């Protein structure tokens, strides 16, 4: 694929739960090496949109084109195989399971007939903890359960997992929620590093400052519609903040 060709194109994506239409025709393009922020109020449909991209939800209508090919995602496995990794808002960890099980959940390292290569999973988890995740507390090992970890440590595990599989598109849904300042800094640094590796990201965050510092482009979502798209150079922090307030109060933005 050529560099000019976008990595992901969504055309007129709709999604209804029962009679409620949550996504009302979304068009979105993600370029190669681009970090795109999705911003919008709670309930705007951000999480639903990314779950359509990862195959958790089937869209009711619309087209997804990834690396130039139209795709239908039967399940999450399918999107992972294509090179889409996700750090879900809910983190998608299992509390009572060890780290080495959580990192490889759903795509375990196996030796034969589906028997786990526990040694390899532990070794890789340990490596990842020290390099990618920065989990260096002495109290945490590959055998630790997720339950005892702090919010930031849990987020590190979720991010480390997304990192391990070397995806082309990494999606992060409110990754800084509930984190300390220091932990937040780490997560934002990680998001920026995605661009340096020539990969793409979709980044959802409520903090406009995080968004403005990190993303190349902002896509504003409101009640299931894209109501504005701006390049970072087009808007200052303050203009973005003002726009969000305006959207909140008036229910629309003037482009």
């Amino acid at each position, binding site marked *: 694929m050529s560099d000019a060709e976008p990595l992901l194109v969504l055309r007129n994506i709709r999604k209804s739960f029962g009679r409620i239409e949550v996504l009302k025709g979304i068009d979105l393009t993600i370029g190669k090496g681009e970090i795109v922020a999705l911003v919008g109020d709670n309930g705007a449909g951000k999480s639903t949109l990314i779950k359509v991209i*990862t*195959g*958790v939800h089937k869209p009711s209508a619309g087209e997804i084109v990834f690396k130039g090919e139209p795709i239908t995602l039967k*399940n*999450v*496995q399918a999107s*992972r195989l294509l090179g889409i990794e*996700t750090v*879900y808002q*809910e*983190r*998608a*960890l*299992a*509390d*009572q*399971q060890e780290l080495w*099980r959580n990192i490889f*959940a*759903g*795509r*375990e390292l*196996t030796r034969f007939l*589906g*028997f*786990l290569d*526990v040694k390899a999973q532990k070794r890789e988890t*340990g490596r990842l*903890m*020290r*390099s*990618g995740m*920065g989990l*260096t*507390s*002495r*109290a*945490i*090992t*590959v*055998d*630790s*359960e997720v339950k005892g970890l702090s919010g930031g440590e849990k987020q590190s595990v979720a991010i480390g997992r997304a*990192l391990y599989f070397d995806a082309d598109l990494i999606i992060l849904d409110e990754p800084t929620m509930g984190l300390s300042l220091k932990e937040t800094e*780490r997560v934002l*640094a*990680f998001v*920026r*590093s995605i661009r340096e*590796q020539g990969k793409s990201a979709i980044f959802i965050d409520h903090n406009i400052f995080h968004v403005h510092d990190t993303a190349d482009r902002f896509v504003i979502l409101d009640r299931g519609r894209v109501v504005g798209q701006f390049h970072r150079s087009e808007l200052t922090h303050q203009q973005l903040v003002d726009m969000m307030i305006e959207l909140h109060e008036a229910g629309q933005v003037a482009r």
Partner: protein
Amino acid sequence: MTSVASSAKDQAAETQHGPSFLWRNRFQIAIIGMLVVLYAIFLIGDWRTYTSFDIYRSFMISIPFFGIMALAATYVVTLGEIDLSFPSIYGLAGWVFSSVYVATASFPLAFLLCLMVGVVGGLINGLLVTKIGIPSIVATIGTMFLWRGLVNVLTQGQGIPIAQITNDPWHALFVGQIPLGGPVVIPAQFLWFLAAAIFFGVFFKRHRFGGHVLFVGDDEQSARMMGIHVDRVKIACFVILGVSAAFSSVFLLNQMLFFWATTGDGYLLTTLAAVFIGGTSVFGGKGTMIGTFVGVLIIASLEPGIIAIGLSGFWTQFVYGLLITISVAIYALMLKRG
């Protein structure tokens, strides 16, 4: 990738210490301790009986009648689900085995059709729970009555004698007695039980499937987002339990040589009690096959043990209740702390 960890921190990580072996295996250790205490009491209560081989032989004969189901039920309970219908599947599968054997004199055919009943019974439970969305406790109350009711209709309450099966070469494969010299005779079904324990244990903790069972039981939504086929995993667990129930009925029938319309009925609570005494959590996500194995040994030795120490059989249920209550209380406290 930005590595925030400094090399000094890397060094520290090399020598880190996580949860200790004892702590990680606290449930297994607790139940093995319970078994040891229980046997100490039995030995003190009746030294002669508990130092002779006979009582252990009778344990080995009867344990597999419900023990294999307890191992399989550990998967279902670890999912955070429950199955109340397996004793009825046991009954229906047993009826199929007996009638087909009487009609055709073919052990393999009877055995195969019997297992099919287990597969179909488990499949129906799994589909009701995953595709229709009925909570498992409700769905399996339904199928429990359904299959037992079907047995009643089919048999009109009549039993089926199958004494002629003792001449079948397959008979010994299931319940033959293997002499090891002196008074030591191992019933074949106990070897099957041991094999099942190893098989289920390895699949549980060392196979992708067991990992998925743990993950789904722990957090179903997370499992879905990680691309685990949640429904498939659940259905498979119900099928495993159904097939185990059918398989177990073959041991019972070959030993008893008679099918009753009530065959399997008494095993519901003992089987589930073995799982819970073993330390598998009803909340899902945490289970232990070693725990269930020891739980089976405890449940099986309780009744003869109570008699051996000089109490009447009327005490049995009371002691069951005491043991179950104490053990689950201990586990709950452990979970709270851990």
